[in-house]
């Protein structure tokens, strides 16, 4: 049985593969992938997750909407969320954090940065 269940919500297969590559270095991690916010919510309702990593710019439902819905749902509100986006501006960071995201990573993606943030939120020493 896996120790940590992590949900990656990202429309780009390249990004999903890259994020998954970084997270697979965590022992006992299990990764579930979703194509957009709606798919992410569907996957969330099916099982328990310890961490969500989501892109902001996605079709159907964007990452900010997903963060907002997760934070307003008593069943999921305790799950840490990391937002991944191309936006580097401070206001985008603040917007994501104000909605309830725990951390924020900007593209281009560095696997070490993903690993560091994920380990911190999963409380892995």
């Amino acid at each position, binding site marked *: 049985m896996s120790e940590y269940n992590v949900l990656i919500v990202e429309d*780009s*297969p*390249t*990004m999903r*593969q*890259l994020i998954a*590559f*970084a997270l697979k270095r965590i022992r006992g991690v299990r990764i579930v992938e979703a194509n957009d916010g709606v798919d992410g919510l569907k996957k969330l309702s099916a099982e328990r997750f310890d961490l969500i990593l989501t892109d902001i710019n996605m079709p159907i439902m964007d990452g900010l909407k997903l963060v907002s819905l997760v934070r307003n749902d008593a069943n999921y509100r305790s799950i840490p969320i990391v937002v991944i986006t*191309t936006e*580097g*501006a401070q206001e985008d960071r603040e917007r994501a954090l104000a909605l309830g995201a725990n951390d924020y990573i*900007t*593209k*281009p*993606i*560095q*696997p*070490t940065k993903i690993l560091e943030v994920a380990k911190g939120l999963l409380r892995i020493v």
Partner: protein
Amino acid sequence: MQKDDDRLTSRGEEFLQVFKKGAEFTQDLLRENERLRYRLLELERAPGPGGEAPTHEVKRLSERIANLEAEKQEILDRIRQVEEENQDFAARYLEIEDENNNLANLYIASYQLHSTLDFREVLQIITEIIINLIGAEEFAILLLDEKSDELQAVATEGVEREQIPVVRLGKGVIGLVAQSGENHFVSDVDDYQRDFLSPMVCIPLKIKEHVIGVLAIYKLLVQKKEFAPVDYELFTLLAGHAATAIFSSRLYSDSERKLSTIQGFIDLLTK
């Protein structure tokens, strides 16, 4: 007379008695003296608190101290050496970690590029690689029309496709890159001013030495200040793999279209 004799005898015995006791006492004194002299000799030999040890013992202990000091120094040197080795290992570990991440980026880029034969999907994947792995915000992919010798944008990000001019082979930075097959990088990314005819980075998309198009980058993401070594490797990878993927997907699309046309004719003929 008899009385005097008895008294004399008694006094003699008393004297002898006293003399005997004196002799015994003298013997005791001599024994005690001998015992004390022996004890004194012992104390002189043994190093008491604050007392001086015999020379040979001092020498032995001095040698022992010197040996221990040498051993201590040796251990300290070894610890220092191990610490230096640890620092080397830590630095090497970080280097390998970086290499590993870079290889992962290259592997994922390559894997994704060859994951489809759909021309539009290939362009989309190239776009994703440039945004997510290189960190570019504004760029265009131009393909060469070998009949007209012109380069025309087929995909753009951050700019409208119409903004990208059609470029003749050999003309301007883009045309020269397509003609020569050599990469172009501006010397200072910070000082670069956007010019659609002269991008900050222009990479030829080549199959061996045959150029099929170029990738032109006009702006990096806000947080991307400069190119990392892995970016140049990604550019090299894009130059080859993206070109192959584009070429294969075009061939596949063409053959699919031809197959569909032929199938249409066959259907018409056999009806």
